[in-house]
Each structure stands twice: as C-alpha cells, then as structure tokens.
C-alpha cells in the first residue's frame, strides 16, 4: 500500500503551548487510520493539519514537513488552500449542516467550485447521498430543511456534503460521539464502505470503535505520538507501556 499522507518532525504551537511534538508518521492510502488518546492529547489538532484548519486559529505556529501525495501542503500558495480543502474533506464532531435544504447542503461544495449546471449538480447530489447511505431516507424531502433530520442523519448528510466535491482524503473528528448507538453503527458501516475509495483519518474517543473500523492506529499522549502501528498490533501487542495502559483502561 502507498503512503498517502506523511509528516516529518512536525511541531505545533498555540502561542506558548506546545501542542504537537516532533511527529513523524506515514499514513496509508485507502485505509482507515484511527487516532486515539485522552482529551487534550493533540489528536484533533493533528487531524486539522491536513486541511489546514489550524490556520484559522490565531497564534498558531507549525514547523516540519507535511506532505500529501509527496507535495508539501504548507508550501502552497495561500489561494491554493481552497484546492487543498476540496481534496481533503472533513466531518466534524457535532453535525453542522447549513440552515439550507437537504439538497442545497450537498450542492454547496459544488457551487463553491463554480459548478452551476443544475443537471450535473443534481446527479452529484444523488450520488453523494447514496454513497453516504442516506438517499433512501431523504429522496422524497430534498427540499426540506436539513434540520428536520435526526442527529445521525445530519451527520451522514455532512458526510455526503464532504463526498460531493470528490475528495481523496476524509478527515473525521469524532464523527459519532454525539450520536446514539444505532446511528453510530450506521456511520461505522459507512466508513467501512468508504475506505475502498478514500483515505480516512478518524479521531475517536471510543477504543472499541477504533478496534472495529480501523486498519492502523496512532496513540497520542500530551502532544506526542507514542505509538503507531497496525490496529491489531496496537490492541493485542502494543510495544509501549503507555499504550498498553491506555487501551486497557488504566487512564484516559
């Protein structure tokens, strides 16, 4: 398998706070990589490196090399950040559909990209909703507000919205933490389907979830990447004591 995303000696500071410490790791294409660790360990910050969402926060300083497909994404023009974000979709912890219709939510990214032929848009909206396993539930109410959907449906809508612009990478920041168990199971099934076509990075608090859905797992603690390996190795035979303590529930 190819390495899709790579970091080399990456440090990140929020003002004086050293949030990520010397992180060097490669993540594989068309695989699910789970990022686990206790609250405040830097896993979400790490995730936001790859679509440069950390840039939106004041006083952030990032050093080191971060590449996607061998291109350093921190040495691109400011105006190319938009292109980067189209290629690297993101799903947030709290479902955040826009206060628009279901259809317009999915179409939003296409319109951002200047696509305005309605036929192209409606085809892509249907395709994306199907990919997100939401089409059957919403096909008769595309003109209704996205806020009429349940939390789990809203999150799948956000996934469809991200897929519509055809990214190659999907970043998911605890996408199921605000959802009930049934909705969570649906999201997990969906992730399993999506990894055929997408490189998925998922931050999760839930270790069983990491074990169920991911191929690789990285364990973060206090801004350091303690261990990164195949998920089955991490969960059955971790090399680091701290990893073992965390996954056996001794802290965190």
């Amino acid at each position: 398998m190819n390495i899709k995303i790579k970091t080399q000696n990456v440090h990140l500071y929020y003002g004086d706070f050293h949030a990520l410490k010397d992180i060097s790791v490669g993540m594989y294409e068309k695989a699910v990589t789970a990022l686990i660790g206790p609250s405040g360990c830097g896993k979400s910050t790490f995730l936001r490196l790859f679509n440069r969402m950390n840039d939106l926060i004041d006083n952030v300083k990032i050093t080191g090399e971060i590449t996607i497909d061998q291109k350093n994404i921190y040495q691109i023009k400011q105006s190319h950040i938009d292109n980067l974000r189209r290629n690297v979709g993101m799903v947030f912890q709290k479902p955040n559909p826009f206060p628009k219709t279901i259809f317009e939510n999915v179409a939003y990214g296409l319109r951002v990209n200047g696509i305005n032929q309605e036929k192209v848009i409606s085809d892509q909206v249907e395709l994306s909703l199907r990919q997100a396993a939401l089409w059957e539930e919403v096909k008769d109410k595309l003109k209704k507000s996205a806020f009429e959907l349940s939390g789990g449906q809203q999150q799948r809508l956000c996934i469809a919205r991200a897929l519509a612009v055809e990214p190659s990478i999907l970043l998911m920041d605890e996408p199921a933490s605000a959802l009930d168990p049934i909705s969570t199971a649906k999201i997990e099934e969906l992730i399993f389907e999506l990894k055929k076509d997408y490189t998925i990075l998922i931050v999760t608090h839930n270790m069983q979830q990491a074990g169920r859905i991911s191929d690789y797992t990285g364990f973060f603690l206090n801004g350091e990447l303690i261990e990164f390996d195949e998920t089955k190795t991490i969960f059955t035979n971790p090399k680091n004591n701290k990893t073992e303590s965390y996954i056996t529930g001794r802290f965190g």
Partner: protein
Amino acid sequence: MIEFPEKADQIKRWSQIFFFGLARILSISIILILLLILYFIVSRGISVISWEFLSAAPKESMTQGGIMPALVGTLYLIFWSMLIAFPIGVMAGIYVNEYSQDGRIKRFIKMMTNNLSGIPSIVFGLFGMALFVNYLNFGASILAGSLTLALLSLPLIIRTTEESLKSVDQGFRNGSYALGASKLYTIRKVVLPIAFPNIITGLILSIGRVSGETAPILFTCAAYFLPKLPSSVMEQCMALPYHLYVIATSGTDVAKTRPMAYGTALVLIIIVLIVNLFANLLRNYFASKVKMK
C-alpha cells in the same frame, strides 16, 4: 433519614411568589405606561386627523391646513439616511466581526462606535452643519440632514450587525471552509443569510430613532415652513418632529394649534409603526429563506 421540613418549604414558596409577582407587576406596568402614552396621544390627536390634515400643507400661519410636507419630508429623511447608513454600517460590522483580528484596531473601532452612540444628538447636528452644510457646501438640505442622521444611526447598525454575526455558530463557518469556500463566499452564502434577520432589527431601531430626531436636522435640513414638496435632495424639507416642536412652542397661536400638535404626534407614531411593519415583513422574508427548522 430523609426529612421534608414544612417551614423551609413555606419560605421557599413565598419568596418565589414574591419575586415573580414583582417581576410580573413591573413588566405589566411598562405595558401600561406605553398604553397610557398611546391613549394620551390618540385621544387628543384623533379629532384633527382627516384627509385634509394628511394631504394639505399648513395654512393661515399653521393654524389651519395639514402636515403633508412634514410627513413626506420625514419619509424622505428615513429613506435617504437608511440608504446611506445601512450598507455602510453592515459592512463595518462585517469588517469588525469577520475580518479584523483581535487587537488594537478592533478594540479602537469598538471603543469609537460605543463613544459615537453616546454623543448627544444636538452635537451631531452641529457637526453636520459644520461639515455637510458649510464645509462641503451642501447647504441646509435633505442630503445634509440625511447624512447627519446616517452618522447618528451608524453605531447602532454596526453594533447590531456585529452581535448578529457573532451569534452565528462557528460550526457553520468551519463547515464551509472545509469544503474549500473562501471567507468572502462563506460570509455571503452562509453567515450573512443567517444573521440578516437580526441585522434588520438594527434597521428597525434606527428607523424609529431617525424618524423622531429633531436636533440633528435643526441646523442641517428642517424648514420652518414650506408650502410645497422639495424637488431634489439639495433642497430643505419639513419634518414631523420639528414641525411638532414648532407648532407646540413657537407658532403664532400655540393654544389654537395644540390639537394639531397631538395630531402630528399621532401621525409620527403611526408612520414609525407602519415602517417597522414593513421592516418586520422584510425580516420574516429573510428568516424564511434560512431553513433553521
């Protein structure tokens, strides 16, 4: 063993009844005062309201005739001042909340808008006279008056815009950025539509204020008496609040014009209510375009 003491329960119950009762009485008394003012104006003013009162100019040294030039003048002033102040205020509010970084410039702008809103309106009037009437040589005119009123209402519009934008959940912005949308696109397509109904509340408040102000137009625009309507923004106009002041204090026969003063006040109130009604419809229209539910 768990206990349920009777006495503590009584105190709790009575203090609840007392404080909520007090709050209820106070809020009802505010409504009563409002109704009282309305009753006062309506009962004394309604008798002079007629088609002639609304459609004719004052006659016989303002003891006869109507208030049409003042009514139309006030509508002109509302229209032009809001046309100037609303876009500028909204853009300034967008700049302060969305673009400027936290720091000195932002703090300075916020401080200045707060200070601006504390300046007495007569000072705005003097400033408007010095800048627009004399220095820029617009003369006393609808243009000079509207610009002065626009300055007066800017702080309110900026503040309401800023607050409305601030209340838009950051998650909406992040969702848009994550799809590759630029900041401008995000503001246009996501943030502003959500905030706009609340921004219009600022417009409504400003209209209420602008339509009732006398001092800012005293030296910049208002005419004591004009028999006909102005034909351009470079001319003076009459205005309801100033007309009210004139016939209530310095007319030729104050006692005789007293009912007309109340009639003028009534018309002013009704105009503000009607304009607000339209603004509310506008707000509901924009709110219906945002699919929050």
